[in-house]
Each structure stands twice: as structure tokens, then as C-alpha cells.
């Protein structure tokens, strides 16, 4: 194990971490917002339900890499797209990858939020209605907080999955962590050491997320804490 090489590789790889974190954070947060919207849309009307179900079916039934390629290379085939208002965004690999990641996590996230919504006790909803709460107030004060708390562990897993998914952005020229790792391996052919370095960085990020979720769960579940 060549320590000098490991240190040099770590330095190169760490340069890609900001981009990895940017892609992860933006896609997770935007995707979560869309997921909540979808989950609510699903319960609102027949058309809404059908639309969301079709969306989730298509995005969970195909590989993320294909979705990235479709947006990055596929859309650019059309002159109409290249001359549209969206082109300054779709031209950049960053926005294409972000779009694909966000759309993908929104699909998985909406299923998780749906599970959370279903877990809200009917009694709590009835009590809220009996107290005269409007639908919006009911959602804001009762349903969503309870649903999101229930969904937190599963959403934590989804967040970790998204951090790993950002590695696919390297395949459309983005130099995040995996892109740099690939470049190092292509030049030096030292796959094991590079895997060791890049892998530990991803593990560190995911460990922090897991800890963060555990802390949030602890904070949000005061009734489950052991008696003082």
C-alpha cells in the first residue's frame, strides 16, 4: 500500500466532494418537496391519482442512468429543444444530471410520503375535523408532521441512495467524486487504492447522514424516549 499515492489520490478526490454534495443536497430537497406535492395530489382526484401512479411507475421501472442519458443526449437531438428557453439549462451537464436525479428521487420519495400519510391514525384526523380545522390547517398541523415523522427512517435510506446515485453524473462529464476516481484509475490503473479512497469518502458522507437522521428521529419522538 503506497501511502504517498493514497494521500495524493485523496487530495484529488476531495476536490470532487463539493459537487457531489451540491448534487445530492439540491436533488434531495427539491425531490422531497415535489414528493410531498405528489403524495397530496394523489389523494385529491382520480386524474391526479392516475398521473402520479403513471409517473412513479415509469421512473421506478427504468434505470436512473437511462433517464440521465435520455435527458442529456436524447433531448439535445431536437432543434426545438436547442432553440428553446430551457437550453441554457439543458446545455449544462450539471442541470441535466440534477433534473434527472430530482425527478427520480421525487418518484421514490412520493411512495415513502404516501406510506407516511397512510400511517396517520384516523382518530387524529377525526379529532382535527371535529375541532373545526380546515383541510389546509389539518394537513399543516396534524397530518404532515405525523406523516413525515413516520417517513423519516425510510427517507433517510432514500437520501443515502441519492448520494450514491450522484456517482452516475460522472458518466455525463461531471467531475464529481466518482468522475475524478475514474480519471485516476484510467491514468494509473490502481483500482483497489482508488476504490479505497473514494469509497471511504462516500461512507463518511453516508455515515453523517445516518447519524443526522437518527438525531432527528430522537428529537421528533419525545414520547419514545426512556423516562428520565
Amino acid at each position: 500500500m503506497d501511502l504517498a499515492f493514497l494521500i495524493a489520490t485523496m487530495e484529488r478526490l476531495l476536490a470532487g466532494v463539493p459537487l457531489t454534495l451540491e448534487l445530492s443536497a439540491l436533488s434531495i430537497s427539491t425531490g422531497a418537496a415535489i414528493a410531498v406535492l405528489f403524495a397530496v395530489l394523489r389523494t385529491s382526484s382520480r386524474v391526479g391519482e392516475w398521473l402520479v401512479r403513471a409517473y412513479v411507475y415509469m421512473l421506478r421501472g427504468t434505470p436512473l442512468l437511462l433517464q440521465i442519458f435520455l435527458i442529456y443526449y436524447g433531448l439535445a437531438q431536437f432543434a426545438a429543444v436547442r432553440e428553446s428557453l430551457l437550453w441554457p439549462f439543458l446545455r449544462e451537464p450539471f442541470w441535466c444530471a440534477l433534473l434527472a436525479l430530482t425527478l427520480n428521487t421525487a418518484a421514490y420519495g412520493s411512495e415513502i410520503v404516501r406510506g407516511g400519510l397512510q400511517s396517520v391514525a384516523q382518530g387524529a384526523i377525526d379529532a382535527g375535523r371535529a375541532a373545526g380545522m380546515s383541510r389546509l390547517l389539518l394537513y399543516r398541523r396534524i397530518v404532515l408532521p405525523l406523516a413525515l415523522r413516520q417517513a423519516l427512517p425510510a427517507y433517510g435510506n432514500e437520501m443515502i441512495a441519492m448520494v450514491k446515485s450522484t456517482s452516475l453524473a460522472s458518466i455525463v462529464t461531471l467531475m464529481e467524486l466518482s468522475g475524478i476516481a475514474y480519471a485516476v484509475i484510467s491514468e494509473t490503473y490502481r483500482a483497489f487504492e482508488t476504490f479505497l479512497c473514494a469509497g471511504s469518502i462516500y461512507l463518511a458522507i453516508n455515515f453523517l447522514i445516518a447519524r443526522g437522521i437518527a438525531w432527528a428521529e430522537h428529537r421528533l419522538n419525545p414520547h419514545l424516549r426512556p423516562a428520565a
Partner: protein
Amino acid sequence: MSLPHPLLRALAGAAALALLATPALAKEWTKVVIATEGAYAPYNLHAPDGKLIGFEIDLANDLCARVKLTCEFVAQDWDGIIPGLNAGKYDAIMDGMSITAKRLEVINFSRAYTRSPTTFAVEKTSPLAHMPDTGKRVSLDDKAATEAAIKELTPALKGKIIGVQIATIQADLLNTYFKGVVEIRTYKTTEEHDLDLAAGRVDAALASTSYFVSTLSKPGGDKLVLAGPLFTGGLLGQGTGVGLRKSDPELKELFDRAISEAIADGTIRTLSLKWFKTDISPPPSS
């Protein structure tokens, strides 16, 4: 070094069988497995029916016939092509690979069978279509001429995005002479940077002129044009050669002999005109 325990040896043998081991080939060559990308037209490409075709496939069949070898082609991605050779996955590489000093450190090459310069491809409507020194031959061995060309190109290229294939001589050229001047985007295959050039995501692509022949003939290729100087020599190497293991000098001798014959009797010229519409065979003396 071998393990004495019979059970362990049996297990190792079974593992080897299960993982498609190929025994070391004898010095008497009868069959050669040649690796190529299938994504570097017109040198090599995939036909719609999945077969590998191209200039190099035709050439290899001719060369192998000359030295009484049977040759077989396998597709292999560019990023793993040299380690695969040294690991023994195949015996030769024919993938438009240039003979460079850097590569000679790890593998051996036959003599060159084509020579073509490197240049930029840009959209006709781009300001880069009027790059200075367009069409002028610049040898990277000539320091003065190279520096002059770089100086002239820098203002035109400043801040532009250039696409190249990863780990190629063209990537080396950009990293060595234009680092900090242009934004370099690396792609796994040349076809990918072509797609992005057509889409306008990169302002130019840098590759061999012989490769761009195919780019300009694909749908949308009429909107592209070659621009900038024709770079040769220096880190770009001395033409494309057959990549071989350092431990196979007899194979190198066979290929060298076959290529020299093919150049002398004009076969390479004929094949070159067929696939590239221009003669990129090396002069017989080189």
C-alpha cells in the same frame, strides 16, 4: 510458488476453469486475438447487425493472411484496452492507437500503418470556424512553431469548452498546451463528444482528422467543419501502430513485416481511400 495441499490446488483449478482461463500462448503464433473499440469509425465500428467492421478489420485480415495467422476480433472499451493487453485478455490492439513515448513505457508497437494529424472540429456557424492557422501543419517537435501557434490560438480559444476522449493524445495535447485557457470535457468515447458538439454543448472537439471523416458523414455532419492547425509529432506520437505486449517480440516482427509489405504494394493506400476517402498511409521509408 505453489500450495502443497491437494484440495486447495483442486479448488484453484476449478476456480480457474470457472473463470475462463486462457493458457499462455506458445511462441509459434498461429492465432491472434485483436482488441478494438467498435466506436471509432472509420477505423473500427459496429454494423447494425452487430459485427465489427472498418478500416482496421479489413487491414488486419490482409496482414494476417500475409503472415499465415488467423485473426479474431473482440470489442473492448478504450479505458481498459491497455491493461487488458498486458493481462493477456487478447494479443494485440488495433484501435487507432498512436505510438507515443508514454505508451511505449508499458507496451510495444508495430511500425505505423497510418499517419494523420490532429485538429479541431467546430460548427460552421461558430466563430471558431475562422480560427487562425486553419489547415496549417504544426509539428509539436518544432518548439518555435508550436509556441507561435499556441500564442495565436489562445485568444480565439480562451474560455471555450473543448471535448476530447479520455486518456488520448488529444487530451494530453490540451492538458499540456492549453491548460487554464480552455475548459476540457472528457468523454468515454469519441462518439459522445460528437453528440455534444452537434448539440452545441462543447464549442469544439479535438481528435484525429481521419476520425472526423466519419463524424462529418453522419446525420448533422454537414453543419460541422474542421478548423485550426493540423498538429503532428511530439506527444502526438508517430502514427498509429498495432499495440503488442513487450513479451511478444516475435509477434511484433510478424506484424512489422506484414505492414511493410502492405505499404509497399499499395494495399494500405487502397484501404485508406476506401474508408477515409483520402490516403493516410505512412510513407514507405518511415
